[in-house]
């Protein structure tokens, strides 16, 4: 059998997190609202109304374009895309066609297996969302809450080569959208929607075969599954001597099958023309500079810097830059601590991340501030408390919001490093455990851990464990 490779391009629709819709002052987010709560004459297409462009949509679009390394155009235009469907009350969608907000661009995907896939961006434009329709018996009910919600449509080149790469693209895009604050990017709420164009070809070929378009793959898992199914189907067809036809398919996530959809209108059928109700959109250098001044260091840049500047392993850097909040937290803690960044990373990844996951919070909501984490690390370094008390302090600080040092004093948690105090307790433990002492002396040296545990227990966890171990070894007379 021929060795095939999959060629994938993704079309994504990104819902921007502005307060209002793109062309009217209705509230954009209707997730918790009943149908038709946020509608007005403009977004329900009443005669005689005029669209007025939301400045925040353009500015968030500019941020996204810059983050995708796309070139923001000095002048762009809006166009009408004409088609009839009940979810579109005007009979056309205001979109951008040939002169859109930005051109070009790319996103790099560091793949878990070590290589980097660069995905080019073919299109990036602003447009309005359509309403929602649902069948109710022999009728159809329409909710226009979503009509006019601002979207950025972004289309990649046919640059992805596996279902995993396609999934990775969505993961990195979602991370980026949240990072730069332009979208909540919650796929379950439809903030990030995806269609996948899939074709196959013999590995190494440089031509493109006819592709199919898979609609509505709206979770990372669905993208992976749908593409794998479709590529396998295409390979079977080609191996059987059949041709691939340019179908539009729909992924049924529950049944795990692809269904053929009614063939859609072709590009020419949309009869695009300039939107006469909106003027051109000039973007001056001054405006652009002002907006892009708000663009933070991007996740992949910060990831690389964490590896370089702090000597973190790729694994740590990847997790710590998963969210902007978390990476800000890490950096603030490293600065406050002044010691080994890897130590900060370990405490964050082992303990604080669990606290965040358990309580569904983000790093900026922790009562254990970066300064408090640094303080705890310093207390451990100075042997004021031992490691396990230090970890217990994380929870105590997070509950009370008090400073770690204050808690140590209040609760008398300071470690006992007084040789004679520990020595007395060690002697007590040895007196109470003649059998274990005998076994240890007979060669069962693994009992050392048990002895240390007994001492710690008696001292309510406050003994310096290495000191306790030293005294135990001394009194037990070696192995």
């Amino acid at each position, binding site marked *: 059998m021929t060795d095939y490779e999959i060629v994938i391009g993704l079309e994504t629709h990104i819902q921007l997190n502005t307060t209002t819709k793109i062309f009217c*002052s209705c509230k954009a987010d209707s997730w918790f609202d009943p149908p038709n709560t946020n509608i007005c004459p403009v977004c329900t297409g009443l005669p005689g109304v005029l669209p*007025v462009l939301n400045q*925040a949509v353009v500015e968030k679009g500019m941020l996204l374009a810059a983050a995708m390394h796309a070139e923001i155009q000095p002048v762009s235009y809006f166009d009408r895309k004409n088609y009839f*469907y009940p979810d579109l009350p005007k009979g056309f969608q205001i979109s951008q066609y040939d002169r859109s907000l930005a051109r070009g661009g790319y996103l790099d995907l560091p793949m878990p297996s070590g290589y980097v896939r660069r995905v080019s961006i073919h299109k990036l434009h602003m447009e309005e969302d359509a309403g929602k329709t649902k069948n109710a018996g022999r*009728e*159809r009910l*329409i909710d226009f809450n979503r009509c006019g919600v601002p979207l950025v449509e972004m289309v990649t080149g046919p640059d992805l080569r596996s279902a995993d790469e396609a999934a990775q693209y969505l993961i990195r895009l979602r991370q980026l959208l949240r990072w730069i604050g332009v979208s909540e990017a919650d796929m379950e709420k439809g903030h990030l929607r995806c269609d996948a164009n899939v074709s196959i070809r013999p590995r190494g070929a440089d031509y493109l075969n006819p592709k199919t378009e898979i609609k509505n793959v709206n979770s990372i898992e669905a993208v992976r599954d749908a593409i794998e199914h479709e590529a396998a189907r295409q390979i079977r067809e080609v191996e059987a001597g059949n041709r691939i036809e340019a179908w539009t398919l729909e992924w049924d996530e529950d049944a795990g099958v692809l269904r053929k959809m009614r063939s859609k209108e072709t590009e020419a059928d949309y009869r695009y023309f300039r939107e006469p109700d909106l*003027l051109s959109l000039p973007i001056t250098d001054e405006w652009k500079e002002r907006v892009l001044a708000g663009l933070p260091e991007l996740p992949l840049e910060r990831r690389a810097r964490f590896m370089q500047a702090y000597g973190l392993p790729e694994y740590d850097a990847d997790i710590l830059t998963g969210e902007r909040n978390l990476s800000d937290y890490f950096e603030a803690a490293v600065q406050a601590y002044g010691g080994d960044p890897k130590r900060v990373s370990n405490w964050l990844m082992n303990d604080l991340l669990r606290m965040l996951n358990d309580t569904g919070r983000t790093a900026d909501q922790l009562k254990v501030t970066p300064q408090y984490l640094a303080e705890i690390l310093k207390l451990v370094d100075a042997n004021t408390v031992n490691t396990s008390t230090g970890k217990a302090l994380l929870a105590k600080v997070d509950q009370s919001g008090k400073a770690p040092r204050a808690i140590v004093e209040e609760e008398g948690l300071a470690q006992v490093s007084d040789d004679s105090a520990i020595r007395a307790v060690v002697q007590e433990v040895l007196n109470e455990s003649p059998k274990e002492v005998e076994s240890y002396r007979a060669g069962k040296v693994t009992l050392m851990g048990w002895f240390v545990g007994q001492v710690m227990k008696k001292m309510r966890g406050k003994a310096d464990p290495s000191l306790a171990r030293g005294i135990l070894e001394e009194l037990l007379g070696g192995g």
Partner: protein
Amino acid sequence: MSLTLEEVEHIANLARLRLSDEEKERYRQQLSAILEYAARLQELDTSQIPPTSSVLPPRSVLRGDEPRTDLTLEQILANAPQSEERQFRVPPVLE
């Protein structure tokens, strides 16, 4: 520049218009005449003239991102042919 009957039918279908045979032929002639006129305009050399997509000054008016409510749900649904459960009700879409 003459349109075929099939092209007229396709355009009518996109606009969701049902035309009689007589109308199809009439619109075929009218639309063909419009296209011919456009074709004549295209003969002019406009390579030295900047495109004019609007005669208004090329400056969009932007709106601040402030929410505002306009009409009530009842006022807007008053424009619906039929409504049910706060929603517009239309015939089902024939796929």
